């Protein structure tokens, strides 16, 4: 019955016979390790296609979802890290095998007649694989992919005449965004695979038409039965593929998957973008060209090289074959040496640059933070998209904003960016801060650098409070920071523990004479800000929005006051990021939430 079916299928398709013909291809000179490379390349390409298909079931192509979905693949899905890791290291393996395959064909002069067309197909395949590498690199839409894409597409844009148009079409506009991701994705998983399949099919068909190139000085065939492709060559192929895959798996375990940087942030100013190692020589070479002539390094030289390689089988007809082959091989050797040198030079330069090290360290820290936030059950990737992951994190966003907008005048733990003319904000609103102020109001950390705010200093000169009383007042004032946003003064006074606080009376007597709190203290002796809810988010937000309010620092002259931050310049979310950062109200890795059951 089985034979009947097989015979019927064979009669209608002839498939088995054709496959058997391929398997039984005679190898008069025996199997060779030299034949392994092309097959290994094919096998790894198949692994790339397969792992790529797997990830297509989980990846989401848009600038707001790409990073989140890749994060989900890498960190949350079963074996996601392994599949993505294989794809990542597979891509690099393909590059290595590609180079070896190319050099092998070059050195054995297999580009000569009758294999010219297959040589060209090989060059086309190489170009396609480079395109795969570039388009895949940016799909996670992380910092690395974002900046690398920017560089590569700008190289395209630098080409004479058509460059800018080509770049706009590839990027999908002048800005990098959703259209960039969908276009690169479409190229990576649709257009390029189809082109690759066509070229690869033709490449293989021609390989069977012309057969494997016999070695120049064949070793005597092994004794016993004559060798055929299967199983004698396929055994070597399998051995090589298994070994290569073993190395890839080792790298995946070593790296724990594939790298994923923090989500793309077009506003970061110091991301040290570097291409994959196999493009490092080009990267380094571009430093040697003045910007105006950049296209010479990035387009003209590689283009000339490719053209020369493509013309090789034709030159072979015109020029003396052997000297040409020698010339080409030695040129390629020289170029490979040069590329190797540039690659090493690039890594060496980075190793020696403290600026690079610092930027890399900062990028690594932000990567770590992003992964921490995304996997935290109380945080996660926000619905607005992965670029909001960091923008909604007080530790990242708050620190950044504070640095940019506040630390020109203020200090944070003594650190600042301009000449100090305002208090230190470290622990602002806490017991420590207020206790320090009561001890020495004219210290640099308090009002020492803002002589117009000398009220506290004047009070200190006349105050008779002893250390214990100062402790009590500080404790009382520090409790203001936890007054809820919607509480009135009356409600607050009726809260247990306020009126009977040991600091209450002292505050009313010593502080209340200047600091007016409507319905609680009189004020009036000197101008001073309203301290109700001082140090709480509501007070701090009010202070940032309207420092010139009568109840705050309205009594100061305009130029002495802190500049107000209008909602146009600082939106509500960012305002809250600053306040929460100062108050230390953000997720900390030391105290992760209890794991879910």
């Amino acid at each position, binding site marked *: 019955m089985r034979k009947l079916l097989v015979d019927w299928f064979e009669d209608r398709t002839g498939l088995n016979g054709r496959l058997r013909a391929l398997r039984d291809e005679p190898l008069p000179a025996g199997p060779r390790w030299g034949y392994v490379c092309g097959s290994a390349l094919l*096998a790894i390409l198949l*692994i790339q296609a*397969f*792992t790529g298909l*797997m990830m297509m*079931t*989980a990846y989401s192509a848009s600038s707001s*979802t790409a990073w*989140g*979905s890749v*994060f*989900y693949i890498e960190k*949350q*899905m*079963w*074996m*996601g890290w*392994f*599949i993505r890791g*294989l794809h990542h290291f597979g891509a690099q393996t393909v590059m290595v095998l590609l180079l070896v395959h190319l050099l092998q064909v070059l050195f054995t002069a297999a580009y000569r007649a009758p294999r010219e067309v297959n040589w060209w197909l090989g060059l086309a395949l190489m170009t396609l694989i480079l395109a795969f590498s570039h388009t895949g690199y940016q799909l996670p839409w992380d910092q690395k992919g974002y900046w690398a894409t920017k560089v590569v597409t700008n190289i395209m844009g630098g080409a004479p005449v058509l460059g800018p148009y080509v770049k706009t079409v590839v990027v999908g506009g002048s800005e990098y965004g959703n259209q960039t991701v969908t276009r690169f994705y479409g190229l990576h998983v649709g257009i390029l695979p189809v082109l690759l399949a066509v070229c690869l099919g033709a490449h293989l068909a021609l390989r069977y038409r012309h057969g494997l190139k016999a070695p120049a000085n064949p070793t005597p065939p*092994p004794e*016993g*039965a004559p060798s055929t492709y*299967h*199983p*004698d060559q*396929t*055994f070597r*192929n*399998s*051995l090589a*593929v*298994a070994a290569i*895959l073993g190395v890839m*798996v080792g790298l995946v375990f070593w790296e724990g998957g594939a790298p994923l940087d923090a989500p793309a942030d077009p506003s970061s100013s110091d991301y040290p973008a570097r291409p994959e190692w196999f493009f490092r020589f080009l990267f380094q070479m571009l430093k040697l060209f003045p910007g105006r002539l950049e296209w010479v390094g990035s387009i003209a030289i590689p283009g000339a090289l490719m053209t020369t390689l493509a013309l090789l089988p034709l030159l072979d007809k015109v020029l003396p074959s052997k000297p040409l082959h020698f010339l080409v091989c030695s040129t390629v050797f020289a170029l490979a040496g040069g590329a190797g040198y540039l690659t090493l030079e690039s890594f060496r330069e980075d190793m020696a640059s403290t600026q690079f090290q610092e930027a890399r360290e900062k990028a690594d820290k932000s990567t770590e933070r992003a992964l921490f936030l*995304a*996997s*935290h*059950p109380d*945080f*996660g*990737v*926000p*619905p607005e998209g992965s670029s909001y992951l960091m923008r909604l994190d007080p530790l990242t966003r708050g620190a950044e904003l504070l640095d940019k907008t506040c630390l020109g005048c203020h200090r944070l733990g003594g650190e600042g960016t301009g000449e100090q003319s305002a208090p230190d904000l470290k622990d602002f609103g806490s017991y420590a801060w207020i206790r320090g102020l009561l001890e020495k109001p004219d210290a640099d950390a308090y009002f020492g650098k803002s002589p117009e705010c000398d009220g506290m200093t004047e009070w200190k000169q006349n105050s008779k409070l002893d250390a214990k009383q100062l402790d009590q007042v500080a404790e009382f004032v520090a409790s203001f920071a936890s007054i809820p946003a919607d509480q009135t003064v009356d409600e607050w006074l009726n809260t247990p523990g306020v009126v009977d606080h040991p600091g209450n009376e002292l505050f009313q007597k010593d502080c209340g004479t200047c600091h007016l709190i409507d319905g609680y203290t009189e004020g009036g002796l000197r101008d001073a800000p309203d301290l109700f809810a001082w140090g709480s988010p509501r007070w701090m937000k009010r202070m940032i929005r309207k420092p010139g309010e009568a109840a705050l620092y309205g009594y100061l002259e305009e130029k002495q006051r802190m500049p107000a931050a209008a909602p146009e310049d600082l939106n509500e979310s960012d305002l809250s990021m600053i306040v929460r950062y100062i108050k230390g109200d953000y997720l900390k890795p030391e105290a992760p939430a209890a*794991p*879910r*059951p």
Partner: protein
Amino acid sequence: MNRRDFHRLGTKALGALVKLTVALPAAAFLLNPLRKASPAGADAPVFEGLVPLSQLKVGVPQSFGVVRDQVDAWVKYPKEPAGSVWLVRQPDGAEPPVIAYSAECPHLGCAINLAGDAKSFICPCHTSAFALDGTPQNHVPPRPMDRLDVELSDDADPEVRVRFQRFRTLAEEKIPLA
């Protein structure tokens, strides 16, 4: 075993090794949804407050949307619609005071609506019909409407709180989905 037999065997074994190295993790990857309790996965269902008891009329079914924090793969959505329920207040003194039904039809998951006369429930897809007490009125639904756990808060006008859950469709028993 001669050289060629060894090669044949080696090719098979190594080929299988290579294929399994890729295929087994890929299978796990594809089967990921079967995994229970992912680290940032779906929350265990909790009670959601829907409406004060006083706003429900005895014996009159009213529908309410359930809105809750949800984790959808990598995205965490705060307060996102998750489904809807029918609440039927029972006469005073009855236990429980309110019955909650999932509006998801046990047949194939369409949203069950109230029939035109407000005396029964009907599913707009395949005409599953249910009485107000949830019992099937024709042969289409495999089981009665799915009752959900209800609790009342301690307020003076207690709030009706419901634990929203989904159940496997087409099954004759109520099997909660993980």
